[in-house]
């Protein structure tokens, strides 16, 4: 008999502790685990005085690098929060694609730090005719596409035609006001508009304004893109990485320090930040809001930030029963039944406390679609309803609605959205709204929105430079993204007014009226506005961003 393994010998296997000690250990462990779990359940408390809400007032868009400080050469690695998708400006549908286009495809104009515009491939601002229907754009004469073809007015006209007419073009609706483009001489483009369009300049500063090489357009552009830019496309692996190399044909090639840029897709925000801290990447976009305050103090990371042009909030289904674009059929939910119920919901939400609790004050409350980062921010466009749960309950009594009011809220399965929805649920319960959260993946949420298969959805909008892009698609009766089924002649008239002039003061006044109407009818309840947080590591300088959140690393370099 082998004494070592026999159950009878003196070396037989023993439990490590005697019974009473084991019981004590088990009870203590159970108590510790319960305490940890239960501590997660607590009501939303006011955070007044504990969170510094002024930390990110204003913006930090970064600064260009001085030639004396940086060395020439090196490959900068940029961690992208999402897959950039197809690298063709006509068909690109991903916001992160703009970070790549910033280095690879310059456009006619660009957005400046104060929300204005500056010429890039154009030489000056467009000359607009008195009736607003003709734009004359002079082009620079020394620009060359990365494949060697020179940039002329003819290639700009061809690019605009392609954006308007290519089947499946995502830029066609943005260029809807442009009837035709004409090359009046080798370096002058004239756009003939069918109606006055205030947003057109911002459109020319975005993807529709990026000239594409005629040769590359003739083939599969997405596989071999060619535009004018400091860098040109080298290679890519789908959903993983994109490599750009310095373009010797660029007109300002001597101002470019880097040899190459490598974009890597890292979707998890914590992993992106860890990569930035360890130096494996030099730039990362969309850093987690909960870390923003700590990152301001972090000496390993330079935090760039700006206020988003968009917003986050709740679409309420009013009359979308058969899909967007179909005739409105009233939806049978308490929220949809009376605008005063929605007003009560809006008054029941403590927007400031929610962003302080969920995002540590890194985001800000929002009550309307006009971002404070635009030229149309005024006291009227930034007006907010008071947080007043008592008044909310009184309003519900007045309408004759019994509490609790049931609300089914569809939420996409992202960390920020889930946490915010739970805090919202807790907050709204105090005023008599019983919110049920329904978590779905993003594609399901957008599909449900279109067919009207929702009661309320927590879904935001990334925003556009011109406020029209953030309002008209949703609230125009014929809007392509009118998920709520909102139809209002008054709103249609106001929106038509808002784009019929380019005068900023006049448009701001119209937007004030639009915001007032939106806060009366509440088809969409605005809740908060994100900030764009971009991190730059300490080994590089010269990374800049702009109010549209596009990050441009073209003129960055490694510090000596």
């Amino acid at each position, binding site marked *: 008999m*082998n004494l*070592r*393994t*026999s159950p009878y010998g003196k*070396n*037989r*296997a*023993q439990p*490590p502790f005697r019974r009473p000690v084991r019981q004590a250990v088990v009870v203590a462990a159970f108590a510790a685990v319960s305490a940890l779990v239960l501590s997660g359940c607590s009501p939303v408390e006011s955070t007044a005085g504990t969170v510094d809400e002024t930390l990110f007032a204003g913006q930090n868009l970064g600064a260009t690098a001085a030639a004396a400080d940086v060395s020439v050469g090196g490959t900068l690695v940029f961690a992208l929060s999402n*897959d950039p*998708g*197809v690298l*063709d400006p006509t*068909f*690109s*549908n*991903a916001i992160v694609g703009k970070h790549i286009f910033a280095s690879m495809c310059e456009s006619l104009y660009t957005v400046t730090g104060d929300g204005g515009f500056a010429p890039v491939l154009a030489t000056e601002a467009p000359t607009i005719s008195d009736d607003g229907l003709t734009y004359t754009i002079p082009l620079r004469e020394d620009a060359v596409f990365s494949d060697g073809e020179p940039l002329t007015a003819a290639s700009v006209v061809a690019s605009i035609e392609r954006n308007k007419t290519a089947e*499946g*073009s*995502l830029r*066609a*609706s*943005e260029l809807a006001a442009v009837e035709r483009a004409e090359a009046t001489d080798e370096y002058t483009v004239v756009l003939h508009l069918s109606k006055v369009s205030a947003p057109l300049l911002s459109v020319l500063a975005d993807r529709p304004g990026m000239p594409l090489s005629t040769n590359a357009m003739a083939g*599969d552009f*997405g*596989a071999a893109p060619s535009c004018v830019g400091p860098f040109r496309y080298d290679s890519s*692996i*789908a*959903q*993983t*990485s994109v490599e750009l190399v310095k373009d010797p044909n660029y007109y300002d090639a001597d101002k470019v320090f880097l040899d190459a840029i490598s974009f*890597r*897709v*890292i979707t*998890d925000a*914590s*992993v992106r*930040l*860890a*990569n930035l*801290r*360890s*130096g*494996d990447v030099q730039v990362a976009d969309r850093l987690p809001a909960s870390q923003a305050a700590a990152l301001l103090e972090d000496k390993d990371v330079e935090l760039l930030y700006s206020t988003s042009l968009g917003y986050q909030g709740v679409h309420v289904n009013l009359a979308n029963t058969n899909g*967007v*674009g179909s005739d409105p059929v009233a939806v049978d939910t308490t929220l949809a039944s009376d605008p005063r119920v929605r007003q009560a919901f809006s008054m029941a939400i403590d927007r400031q406390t929610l962003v302080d609790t969920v995002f540590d004050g890194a985001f800000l409350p929002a009550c309307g679609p006009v971002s404070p980062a635009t030229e149309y921010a005024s006291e009227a466009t930034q007006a907010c309803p008071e947080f007043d749960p008592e008044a909310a309950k009184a309003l519900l009594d007045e309408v004759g609605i019994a509490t609790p009011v049931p609300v089914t809220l569809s939420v996409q399965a992202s960390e920020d959205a889930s946490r915010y929805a739970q805090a919202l649920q807790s907050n709204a319960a105090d005023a008599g709204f019983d919110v049920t959260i329904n978590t779905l*993946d*993003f*594609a*399901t949420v*957008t*599909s*449900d929105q*279109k067919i009207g*298969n929702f009661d309320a959805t927590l879904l935001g*909008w*990334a925003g556009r430079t011109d406020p029209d892009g953030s309002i008209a*698609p949703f609230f125009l009766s014929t809007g*392509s*993204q009118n998920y709520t089924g909102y139809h209002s002649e008054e709103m249609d008239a106001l929106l038509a007014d808002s784009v019929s002039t380019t005068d900023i003061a006049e448009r701001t006044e119209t937007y004030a009226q639009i915001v007032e109407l939106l806060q009366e009818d509440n088809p969409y309840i605005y809740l908060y506005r994100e900030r764009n947080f971009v991190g730059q590591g300490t080994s590089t300088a010269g990374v800049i961003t702009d109010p549209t959140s596009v990050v441009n690393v073209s003129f960055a370099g490694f510090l000596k």
Partner: protein
Amino acid sequence: MLRFLSIKLFHAVMTLLLVSIVVFIGIRLLPGDPAQIMAGDNQDPAVIAAYRAELGLDQPMVVQYWHYLVDLVTGNLGMSSSSGRPVAEMIAQTLPVTVQLAAITIVLSVVCGLAFGVAAAYWRGRWPEWLSNGISLLGLSIPNFWLAILAIVYLASAISWLPASGFVPFATDPGGWFLHLIMPALILGTSLCAVVMRQTRSNMIEALGSEYVLASRVKGAGEPRVVVVHALRNSIIVVVTLVGLHAGALLSGAAVIEQIFGLPGVGRLAVNSVFLRDYAVLQGVVMVSAAVYVVINLAVDLLYSVIDPRIRVSGRTA
């Protein structure tokens, strides 16, 4: 022999056909479609209709399936709607990465499991056994995605021992290739190591108490020889079976680990294609995986029939 082979081949083809139907219908049951995803936030109905027509989504399901089947049989896996690249190219770029990750994971977890299992069995009743048991319990209980994020934050970010994410091909930099894969492989292998350890321990305990081990000790063999040559050899057969059974779990766990560590593997490709409703890519990945399993099973069956003539003749043993 020919009859045996043709029956097996027929079963293989039927299995693949069934898989193609299940995945084809399965992904189309999800709300949304690739046309909506491709349109991004420009949800213009005309644009979406144009994409639907281009992808053939406006045709009846049966017609779509028929076109898909015809393409499949001719070896055409189609084009990805989200990236515009051929599906075959995307799979060819990503499959090797997953295979490399799985291979390193299996090697590391088997070595880990055997080492701890032998220690637990040999020093039974003493601290090595309790340490091994504790480690195997943690390995089975702790979710590996949580462990992955902890590892990135502490090992990569705070101390910079290992790269935080990404992949470097072996041909470019063998050292970098290994450093990028070792953390994901260790974390992916925690549960396999735990399972191998438990099984090895119980097999070894039985083997160490057996008579042939007693006989070899009596004959004067040294302890290392007794443990490795005599006792361990008999335990390894079960480990091989275990690894085979766990291969499936390994591949699905790989999808999560690949997402976290940014490894461009086929698991991450499959998960992304579900979120992007990229029908062609998901169908392609599933069909390729199914084909690999079927081919391996067929090869193993053939191998059995070669080793054991009874199977070859009658299709069963005795």
